[in-house]
């Protein structure tokens, strides 16, 4: 006895949630998949974005998404500086595996506690015209705020894909993930390319933060719940593949909403881990991996 109302609502909201997960995971696909930088602090930068949106929304009445799009170039510069530090401290010596991981773990932690000290442990939310209402098509309801997440998430992935396909730097990002030596031969500097790509990755995190706080109220520690999700999406999608990221994000979104609908919301954090372990154990190359 399938309740079609419930099922179709769950599927639709799964796809919408998947759109948001695209925005969250695209930066990890760039940093971890393409550049081999295990930036586990990525969710912390997303939280930073969420609180940037919160701050400008409550203090100056700026639209949360607009605030983060304006902040994104600054995040890009910050990301480039961070990569430079990472390169000189770890990657140059080939020490990135142990120390690099610990470095990002430390960053994750510093950002989280920093946000906690500034904004406290209360849930914060933003105000915008599109947050309350939604559209109803038949018995399926689509809230505007989720639809914005889907549109912006897909637009971000499309933007990165376009950049990778059309520009020299973009193609060089893919090259650096395959063969840095060969990239040097055609006149690209791997370190510079990775710096640019990491900057882009951090900028996407900030924008994803705006989407997060539009979708739900936010407090500093919920960023940790995203860690399993972003890496599950990246691994399941096949590490370097952007279409893979979209498919994996949608799958995870649908799997989570189905779990929430039929088992209750408290189980959904475990889904991403199950997917991650299963992928690593059965097919580490992911669905669209080479």
């Amino acid at each position, binding site marked *: 006895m399938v309740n079609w109302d419930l099922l179709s609502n769950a599927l639709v909201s799964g796809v919408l949630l998947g759109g948001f997960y695209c925005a969250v995971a695209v930066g990890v696909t760039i940093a971890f998949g393409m550049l081999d930088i295990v930036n586990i602090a990525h969710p912390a930068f997303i939280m930073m974005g969420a609180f940037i949106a919160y701050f400008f929304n409550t203090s100056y009445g700026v639209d949360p998404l607009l605030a983060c799009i304006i902040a994104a170039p600054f995040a890009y510069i910050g990301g480039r500086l961070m990569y430079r530090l990472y390169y000189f401290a770890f990657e140059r010596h080939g*020490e990135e595996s*142990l120390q690099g991981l610990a470095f990002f773990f430390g960053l994750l932690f510093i950002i989280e506690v920093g946000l906690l000290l500034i904004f406290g442990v209360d849930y914060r939310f933003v105000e915008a015209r599109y947050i309350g209402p939604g559209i109803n098509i038949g018995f399926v309801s689509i809230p505007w705020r989720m639809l914005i997440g889907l549109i912006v998430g897909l637009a971000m992935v499309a933007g990165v894909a376009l950049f990778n396909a059309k520009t020299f730097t973009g193609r060089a990002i893919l090259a650096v993930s395959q063969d840095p030596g060969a990239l040097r031969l055609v006149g690209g500097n791997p370190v510079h390319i990775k710096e640019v790509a990491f900057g882009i990755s951090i900028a996407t995190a900030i924008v994803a933060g705006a989407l997060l706080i539009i979708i739900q109220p936010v407090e500093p520690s919920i960023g940790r719940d995203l860690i399993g999700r972003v890496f599950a999406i990246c691994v399941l999608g096949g590490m370097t593949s952007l279409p893979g990221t979209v498919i994996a994000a949608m799958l995870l979104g649908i799997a989570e909403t189905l779990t929430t609908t039929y088992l209750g919301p408290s189980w959904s954090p475990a889904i991403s*881990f199950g997917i991650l372990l299963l992928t690593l154990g059965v097919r580490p190359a992911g669905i669209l991996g080479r």
Partner: protein
Amino acid sequence: MTLPHASDRAVGEKRARLRARTILPLAGMAIGIAIVFFGLDWVGTDYAYLAAYTVLQFVVLATAWNILGGYAGYVNFASAAFFAVGVYTSVINYKTIKLPLIATMPLAAIAAGLLGLGVGYLTLRLRGTFFSIATLALSVVMNTLVVNWAFVGGSRGVYVLRPQTIEFFGPYTRYLCIVMLIMAIISVLIARAVERSWFGRGLAALKDDEIAAECAGVPALRLKLAATALSGALMGAAGAPFPYFVTYVDPATAFSLTIAVNTIAMPLIGGTSTWIGPVLGAVLLGSLQQIATVTISSALNLLIVGVLMVIFITLAPNGIVGLVEKIRERRA
């Protein structure tokens, strides 16, 4: 039949020096422990025992983490999950068969060791980063499991009653402190034994170059699995007395970020290459936090640990032990 040779004598001298170098710190530790313990008894308050317990607990956790993280170079972010397995094994025991604490600790170690084996078996065949990522997610999942498990208290938590005193040991807090002290000594001895055996040398070879080590005949997967299980088991054992220590356990305390962060920060700050690094890191950082929690807020306190960790791994990747060695070399 060989005659004593000049080089043989040099080797002998070197060995003697090595032995002195290992006996001295051990003797120093024994004396230190004795002084601390008499000091605690002299102060005699519950708070003193509990503060010492916390520091010793971190000695166990940091030492356990270092067996996999320091010797083999595999970063485990799920120390809180392994610790919590121990905590909840103890809670289950408390709610069912009520074995004494000493008997619960091996059970907790077995449960956490099995968890390590399971996660390791699925992820250790791949690159080290995948193992680390899986452990990151592991904490979230174990947390979810406990939140949904009403028998062990769910998200509301559970109360554990401890007796005021216990035969022969006096106050129960003193007893807990002694148990953790013994646990700390056992883990340090295990870490030291691992470091000096073929097991430790195999792990070190994996850390330097896994492919080369495998080609040279090091059974990579088996060594990594053994190290993960051993490290997890020690963390689990450290978690078993915890319910009696806090008397109220909920998922937020059992899976606290304090444990996850400190367990990684302490060995990295102390130095990961020898057994003494994590001990040094745990004692220094642990005592510092005991003082800091009283004087400043605990959130700020954690921020300091995070900042210290990042500074150390960026500027002094070999920790305090590495710094001391560098100074010694410069003098010589």
